[in-house]
């Protein structure tokens, strides 16, 4: 896989070119990069054979952290770590409980926590403004408040930079003993423990890391759309993240970004072509990918490579 960095560089270049050539796509691509970062977390858990069907809660935590803090502290460079911190802390707390469970219980408990968070965001109307959501306005970047086109470029740049950073981090992590142990949880967990590797701690680390990336992804989404609603935590949003992971392919840290870009583009073009049935088109794309290209976009690319 020596060509992976090359491919990543080419991909980044293509994204920049695309964002430059078609201004309105810059927004879509920024969102795709943000979701890609969150999906990296799904990828980690998939390595351990676990599917989180509630991962959108970390996006929501990151996004709402930004929404709540922005009026008093509009600095993006502070908001991002704050959002990451909140999501990480939350991930650690529920992770301690969740890593005791596997398979459907793991997935459903994640779903349960996400749904509780979703309900609270809707119910606590006095604090969260319910489904109307909260507007994120007046962000500053290192103390400056650039014009809209510049600001869009800055957000795109931050998202791309963080995507590369987290992509590298995940690649390194997956190659490390801790990362390799994840696969052990998937296949033969008991064997792992015989060898003296504490499976729960391995999974917890991955879970907390995935929560962190979820929070960062959510914060980026909030800063880009500049309006946060509870829908970001709904279970279908979690389903989309898993969808993206498989669409892109779980074989590489590039997968989530390939998947997220493909997902957003398909959705935008499907919605433009048939506004009433975009969901059906997305569903059909997903079916085709699973049935005929279970390795996702990455799988297609790397297979052709070897050939």
């Amino acid at each position, binding site marked *: 896989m020596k060509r992976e960095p090359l491919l990543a560089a080419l991909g980044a270049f293509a994204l920049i*070119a*695309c964002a430059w050539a078609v201004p309105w796509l810059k927004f879509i691509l920024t969102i795709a990069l943000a979701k890609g970062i969150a999906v990296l977390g799904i990828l980690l858990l998939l390595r351990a054979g676990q599917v989180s069907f509630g991962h959108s809660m970390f996006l929501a935590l990151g996004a709402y952290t930004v929404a709540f803090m922005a009026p008093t502290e509009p600095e993006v460079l502070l908001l991002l770590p704050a959002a990451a911190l909140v999501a990480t802390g939350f991930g650690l707390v529920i992770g301690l409980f969740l890593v005791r469970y596997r398979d459907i219980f793991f997935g459903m408990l994640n779903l349960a926590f996400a749904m509780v968070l979703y309900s609270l965001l809707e*119910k606590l*109307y006095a604090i969260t403004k319910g489904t109307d959501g909260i507007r994120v306005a007046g962000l500053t970047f290192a103390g400056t408040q650039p014009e809209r086109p510049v600001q869009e470029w800055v957000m795109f740049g931050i998202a791309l930079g963080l995507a590369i950073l987290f992509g590298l981090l995940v690649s390194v992590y997956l190659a490390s003993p801790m990362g390799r142990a994840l696969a052990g949880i998937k296949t033969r967990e008991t064997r792992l423990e015989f060898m003296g590797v504490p499976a729960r701690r391995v999974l917890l680390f991955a879970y907390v890391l995935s929560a962190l990336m979820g929070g960062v992804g959510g914060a980026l989404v909030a800063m880009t*759309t500049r309006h946060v609603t509870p829908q970001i935590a709904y279970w279908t949003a979690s389903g989309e993240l898993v969808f993206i992971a498989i669409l892109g392919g779980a074989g590489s840290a590039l997968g989530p970004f*390939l998947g997220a870009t493909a997902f957003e583009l398909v959705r935008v073009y499907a919605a433009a072509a048939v506004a*009433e049935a975009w969901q059906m088109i997305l569903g059909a794309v997903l079916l085709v990918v699973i049935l005929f290209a279970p390795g996702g976009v990455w799988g297609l*690319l790397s297979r052709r490579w070897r050939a």
Partner: protein
Amino acid sequence: MTEAVTRRAALLGAGATAGSLLLAGGGAQAQGKPSELRVGITTFLSGSASVFGVPAKQMAELLFEEINKAGGIGGVPVRPFFVDEAPGTDHLVGEFRRLVQNEGVQIVFASISSGSCLACTPLSDEMKKTTLLWDCGTQRIFEEAPHPYAFRTQGYGTPEVLAPLLYLLKHKPDFRTLAVINQDYAWGRDSWELWKAGMDAMKPGVRVVAEMFPRFGATDYSTEVTRLLAARPDVILSTSWGGDLVTLLRQSAERRLFERSTFVLPIAEASMQILGRTMQPGHIIGARGDHWNNHPSPKDPARLKRFVDLYRSKYNEYPIYPCHHMAQAISAMQAAYAKAIAAKGGGWPNDQELANAFRGLTFDSPTSSITLREDGQGLEDQIVGLSSFNQQYPFAVPKDMILFPAAMVSTPVGQKSVDWLKSLKPDFLNQVPAPIAG
């Protein structure tokens, strides 16, 4: 390398398609007349709110077809671009940009959901693109910040809640207890806050025996109905709509809750056709405006009839209020373009000139006429009445209607709705017009 090329080619391909569309749209920005007038319309095409979104879209298509048959607007054919609100704010905000930057729409009709409106309106400021808030009701929009390019071509939450409240105070002045059952989302909460502020100001001392906010989209209300049956409030307020309202009212009818309490249903109109005879007579119903099929004094009865028949002949249903709200936005757009083109001596207006034309604009609706205030808010009259049945319609329509002039029930410019409602005095009721006989 092939794979990288494939991917880049795919992306560039997408970019190229989009880019060409961009150029096509960009042409519309030029000073001359564009080849077509592109209108972006965000509405619910899926999910539970599509009960409003789809009829509105259907109405829009019928009206656009009519306009084009008559030669378009200022000689330019109109073309709608519909966008689904259901996938969420992040998608919608992206779609708004796509509509403006890629499709080159000259005007956007934004949103049924208040959340969508709150997300789109600031974009209209940034992109300097005229945006008509064609259905959302939140009072926050114009009360929290000015929006130079946004206009709401219909009423909003405050008059839509205050009018039924005033009707109740006139119709049943001696009620002592009240229960509320609203959908648990922004409108359900906001409308209750507005109602409570007005009620406590004009009739202090009403005891609220139950405050229920069932989940949005709840499919079963039997527990809530039991609780209401046991509590026996004099009045039950519900600003719910869509499937939620139909379920609530059917379960209430089945279990004779209508016999114990008087219902106040500010958004009943859109559900009356589906409920048919299940709706009980003698309860207070509203329509988010004055658009009832049996409007007692439409400005142009022939126009209203033509409007209703246009929809009925195609869909075999009477148009519901979102159809009217859509028609109002379209009518406002026609009037504003006419005004702007006239002001420019026949030239095609740019974004700023178009927005200028909307300020203070008066345009005809199928039932009456609406004026846009200086803050962008439309003044739409409200008609509230008691549910009743007659020979003409197979569903409930209001009788003993009171027409509330919009200016009377809307918060004055520059004030916040809740504060204004709190400042009302019981003698405010003296301003309420008499019911219209019939």
